[in-house]
């Protein structure tokens, strides 16, 4: 298995090898050894020709001048303490005898070779022309090496990151709800391993969701078949049941049916997330239709939203249903625009209202109001579904506290500029 770190490591080793080879080549190219030799030869030559340290300064100066004529080198002779004894040619760079050893001394006219003679004197030699310009060559070669390394490393890094990017887009696709999202597995390293793990996880999620959906579909059907039998039996029982009792039983069946419906819808929305079928929906018209069922007073201006018409209908119906159960009196529905890009649906009733402390909790599934005398009836799933549907459409539902003045629910959805309300 080719590991990722190995790839990195090999890349670095390759870079090093290239660098070493390049530097070696540089040294050869510059031919520094010959230059060093020349300087040393000149220095040795000068040493052998120089008169002893106790000779007069004039003799020493004369020797240097003879050398200068032949070699055209700049020469300086210094005492052991660094004091200048004799000098020819251009000025030489200063040096500190207490710190210096044999070697190059940098200076404005170019580096000079410093040599300590056996008698303690110092000889500073600078050849007339520097055949070597390390700056220029070094720059060119290093740039070439860097370029080569960059060119060589680019495809490696690119390939690696491109695979990671593909993996990321696969993960995002899955996150958006496309459970069929898979990524291609390339190579045999960690990234490929990760891609494989992702694919395994994705197919597992897909299986789970599919079986969940199957379960829901079967549940719905299996629960409703006996319910249908009960309903039929009740309808067919004829006059043997008092009308009042029959009505109660019918209401119970309807409630159970609704509960099954809401449970299934809630889990379906959980599993699916965004609505599957969407179209432009005229919210005012929808509110008017549902309002007619519940004898609610509907007003407002036409505004459209994009969404699943059945779910949006359900959302409004649940609010009206809630208003009827917990409010009483004629509910008020007002549809309009909230800002530039939002549509709002307000539903008010004339019930006791909902205190602020309960405004959030009322959206919890099966929430029951504490100490409520309302015939022990909870809110069921209705309001939880309202919020779930609103959110799955990119909006939200909230309860606005009102003391004694009836409860007020507000749904905000993204509005669309629709052709629905233009002149057809």
């Amino acid at each position, binding site marked *: 298995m080719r590991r990722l770190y190995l790839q990195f490591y090999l890349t670095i080793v390759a870079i090093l090898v290239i660098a070493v080879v390049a530097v070696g080549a540089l040294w050869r190219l510059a031919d520094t050894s010959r230059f060093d030799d020349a300087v040393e030869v000149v220095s040795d030559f000068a040493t052998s020709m120089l008169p002893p340290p106790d000779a007069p300064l004039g003799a020493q100066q004369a020797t240097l001048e003879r050398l200068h004529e032949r070699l055209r080198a700049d020469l300086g002779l210094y005492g052991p303490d660094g004091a200048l004894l004799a000098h020819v040619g251009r000025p030489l760079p200063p040096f500190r005898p207490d710190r210096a050893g044999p070697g190059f001394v940098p200076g404005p006219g170019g580096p000079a070779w410093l040599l300590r003679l056996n008698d303690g004197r110092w000889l500073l030699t600078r050849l007339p022309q520097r055949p070597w310009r390390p700056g220029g060559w070094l720059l060119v070669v290093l740039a070439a090496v860097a370029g080569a390394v960059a060119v060589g490393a680019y495809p490696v890094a690119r390939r690696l990151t491109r695979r990671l990017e593909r993996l990321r887009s696969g993960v995002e696709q899955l996150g958006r709800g496309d459970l069929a999202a898979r990524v291609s597995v390339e190579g045999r390293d960690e990234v490929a391993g990760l891609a494989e793990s992702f694919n395994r996880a994705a197919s597992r999620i897909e299986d789970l969701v599919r079986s969940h*959906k199957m379960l*829901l*579909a*079967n549940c*719905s*059907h299996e*629960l*409703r*078949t006996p*319910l*249908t*039998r*009960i*309903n*039929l*039996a009740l*309808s*067919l029982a004829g006059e043997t049941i008092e009308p009042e009792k029959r009505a109660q039983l019918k209401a119970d*069946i309807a409630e159970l*049916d609704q509960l*099954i*419906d809401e449970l*299934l*819808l809630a889990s*379906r929305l959980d599993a699916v997330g965004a609505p599957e079928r969407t179209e432009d*929906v*005229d919210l*005012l*018209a*929808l509110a*008017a*239709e549902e*309002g*007619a*069922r519940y*004898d609610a007073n*509907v*007003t*407002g*201006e*036409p505004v459209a939203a994009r969404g699943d*018409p*059945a779910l949006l*209908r359900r959302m409004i119906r649940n609010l009206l249903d809630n208003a009827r159960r917990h409010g009483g009196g004629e509910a008020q529905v007002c549809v309009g625009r909230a800002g530039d890009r939002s549509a709002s649906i307000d539903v008010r009733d004339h019930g006791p209202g909902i205190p602020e402390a309960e405004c959030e909790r009322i959206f919890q599934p099966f929430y029951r109001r504490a100490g409520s005398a309302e015939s022990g009836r909870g809110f069921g799933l209705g309001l939880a579904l309202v919020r779930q549907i609103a959110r799955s459409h990119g909006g939200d539902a909230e309860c606005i506290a009102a003391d004694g003045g009836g409860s007020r629910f507000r749904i905000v959805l993204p509005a669309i500029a629709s052709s*629905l*309300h233009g*002149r*057809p």
Partner: protein
Amino acid sequence: MTARILLIEDDQRLADMVADYLGQAEFRVATAATARDGEQRLKRETFDAVVLDLMLPDADGLDVCRRVRQTSDVPILMLTARGDAMDRVVGLEIGADDYLPKPFEPRELLARLRAILRRKSAPPAHDVRRFGRLEIDRGARQVRLDGEERGLTSYQFALLDALANHAGRVMSRDALMDLLKGEAFEAFDRSVDVHISRIRAAIEDNPKKPRRILTVRGAGYVFAREQDR
């Protein structure tokens, strides 16, 4: 003449009850518990209509419906459950004539069954749109509720048709007037509101509490998309 119905339903007790009930209503009912059995009987015998359960032990009701439709144009009423993957659109697309969600009222089953049988015996109608119990027959320029013709003037029919064309949208009076420009006015009455109340009197169960054509104060009228549900 009594109609012969084939009921394909795997729940034996429910099948018996439905058969009993439909029997009382003078239908002759044969039952099949599996898709296989049902399809075989359909090949051997003639039925006037099929009541098909969506979930059968050996097949998906949708597939059965599709297969039957390939060889026969017998009316099919599908029994579904709300919240199923199946819904009205899918069911009707694959060729079912109507669908009824469980748990249903027996009376409703009877009404739907009669409606699809009636449609089958009627001469093939083109350009008929159904909204629950309401039928708008644009070919004959007729409106029927439960199969019974309701009298509308030509202008009122045009108005109803325009509303139904935009079902589920709020239509302002101006927009409606625009749509009806080509129609000959009826001299005695030019107000849309008056025509609407005439139409309501004809097609609403309770014109005081309309369910099909709704008024939205200050905005206009809506023709309800979902009726009788």
